[in-house]
């Protein structure tokens, strides 16, 4: 332990064995102190950032059928929804009225829509003068397959249409064993990394996420973080990392009682471990959407330096039985109450 503490206090990188040792032997306080030391080193000022945006889910129709998801509708069962451009327009107007700077655009893997639809969608939003943070790697991968073109071409065409950056969703756990169990129809771990590498190569910034606390082994969480850290060494394209635990309500995976809801303790521990391991990531976001305002605020001392988004609208986590709502005013109060200064930012972490 002493060696690991020295490594961290010297600002050096911990290796995989150190990570596993910390996970096994460090208590919540030690992890908090270590993560907070690193966070303070990277962000010596008092600012805690957040973004004003809205999640727009253009469709819930999805052929992926992931067992951890409560949001999707299978195409053949009907009842799925595809957002009209009129509805989209109204959502954008509302977002901008609330001081929003971007929309986070994500949807299911729709079987019948080709690249042309997504180009139109991005162009429509971009034309309304708001940043499009859209399409996780599984979607990019799917668009390529449906349209019979490469993921690189998909990215080029979407950028041409106005795509500004890519959210890090659909990563779950970047282990092919885990994905085989929970999301066999989704792009695998290598493909997820490949899309991100291509995107970074084209100058698109992206985030990275992790959804833990289901069927993965602890070593697979490490595998996930290792893949992210390696790619970040190569490209430097990730702006932030966000992790949260699996939310079991209304999901097939949640039917198995052993997959119970992860508590606040384990979340803070994983957040701190991520902050310690991902030394080449500038920003770590708190997940108030899954953890609620109290734990999210506390996470500012366990590695997080960003409060994420106001999420004027959120549907995916809400479908899994959790629906916290936080307005900008409340985010600012929580940040101030913890002794920090709230600052609105854009996707690329420049301040508004």
């Amino acid at each position: 332990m002493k060696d690991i503490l020295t490594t961290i206090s010297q600002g050096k990188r911990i290796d995989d064995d150190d990570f596993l040792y910390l996970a096994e032997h460090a208590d919540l306080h030690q992890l908090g102190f270590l993560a907070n030391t690193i966070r303070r080193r990277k962000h010596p000022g008092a600012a805690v950032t957040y973004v004003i945006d809205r999640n727009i889910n253009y469709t819930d129709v999805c052929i992926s059928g992931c067992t951890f998801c409560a949001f999707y509708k299978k195409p053949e069962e009907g009842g799925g929804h595809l957002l009209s451009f009129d509805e989209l327009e109204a959502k954008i107007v509302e977002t901008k009225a609330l001081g929003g700077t971007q929309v986070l655009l994500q949807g299911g893997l729709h079987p019948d829509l080709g690249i042309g639809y997504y180009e139109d969608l991005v162009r429509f939003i971009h034309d309304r003068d708001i940043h499009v943070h859209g399409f996780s790697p599984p979607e990019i991968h799917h668009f390529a397959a449906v349209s019979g073109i490469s993921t690189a071409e998909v990215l080029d065409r979407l950028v041409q249409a106005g795509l500004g950056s890519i959210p890090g969703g659909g990563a779950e756990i970047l282990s092919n064993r885990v994905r085989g169990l929970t999301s066999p129809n989704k792009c695998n771990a290598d493909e997820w990394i490949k899309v991100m590498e291509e995107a970074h190569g084209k100058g698109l910034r992206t985030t990275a996420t992790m959804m833990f606390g289901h069927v993965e082994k602890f070593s697979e969480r490490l595998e996930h973080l290792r893949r992210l850290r390696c790619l970040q060494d190569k490209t430097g394209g990730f702006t932030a990392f966000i992790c949260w635990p699996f939310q079991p309500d209304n999901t097939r995976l949640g039917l198995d009682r052993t997959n119970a809801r992860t508590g606040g303790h384990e979340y803070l521990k994983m957040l701190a471990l991520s902050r310690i391991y991902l030394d080449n990531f500038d920003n770590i976001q708190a997940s108030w959407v899954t953890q609620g305002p109290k734990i999210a605020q506390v996470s500012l001392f366990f590695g997080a330096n960003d409060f994420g988004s106001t999420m004027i609208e959120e549907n995916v986590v809400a479908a899994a039985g959790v629906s916290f709502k936080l307005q900008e005013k409340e985010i600012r109060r929580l940040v101030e109450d913890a002794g920090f200064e709230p600052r609105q930012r854009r996707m690329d972490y420049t301040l508004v």
Partner: protein
Amino acid sequence: MKKYIEEAGFGHILEKVNAGQRLSRADGLQLYNSHDVLSLGYMANIVRNRINGDNTYFIYNQHVNYSNICTNLCKFCAFGKEKGAEQAYEMSVEDVKEKVRRRLDEPITEIHMVGGIHPDLPFQYYVDILRGIKEVRPEVHIQAFTCVEIAHFAELAGKPVEATLETLKDAGLGSIPGGGAEVFSPRIRQITCEKKLPGAEWLEISKIAHQYGLHTNATMLYGHIESYDERLEHLDALRNAQDETNGFLAFIPLAFHPKNTGMSEISSTTGVDDLKNMAVARLMLDNFPHIKAYWIMLGQKLAQVALSFGADDMDGTVKEEVITHMAGAETEQTVGSHTLIRLIREAGRTPFERDTLYNIIQRP
């Protein structure tokens, strides 16, 4: 860790904590004024581990609120209603018995029962509901009636507090919960609960109960208009009383819930405030055996994290919580013991099912 805490300016407090010395109110104020929850939690955890090790307690209990009709109508309360008000209710002795009867198939060991200061129910009613519960469930421990209610009953009975407690004990009262303490400061009581029993009398009744062999708990309702100084005055008064009688079992910090109260313009407490308050309580109340993280008020996630910030008890299954939920609590109204056990284990602690007096019933 030590270096971090020294750099945060808490070196002298850490020394006292490690030496088992009592913290001063000035120490307490320095802790409250800090945003450094990590240092506070680390030090509180030292005290927690010294007193309770990894042991973390929960209880299988049921709440019964016999009536919400109340003449005090404290500003911070969403539960109390005037007689005749639309939402006002009172249970008959038979209603109370029925409530207990309905859960006879569950392994409940404690009935937690409190109510408002009712304008015209006679003293005999309170004796009868205790007896009624014991008739239905003879082996159950009844923790009932805050010191505020006890003072009211003594008036009703026209007897001293000792004699009143004697009658209640004969009827089945096992111990007294910690409610009604709010914040002892006369300034705060003047503004928020003018008609309520003054803080000094609340403490006096607790001490009489202790001398009489009844254990009690203590609470503090924080996060409204009280200052840190007033919180410390409150903790100090409890610590002094405990030095005298040693009858308090647990301290339970209660986070103010503003919705539907006369103080609804105030914001809810934050996670940082909740954890700070938990840690300071554990550090100041060095003579209290237990600090409770009441999950109904904190939420399950934060209550679990509080186990590393001084708390060693998660309360219990709490069937049908009403008081906090009328003030907008978004937590569940009950929780299965398996969930509590899981939360405690996930936090790296050892769960124990306890009875009201902290005797261990089983290690699951």
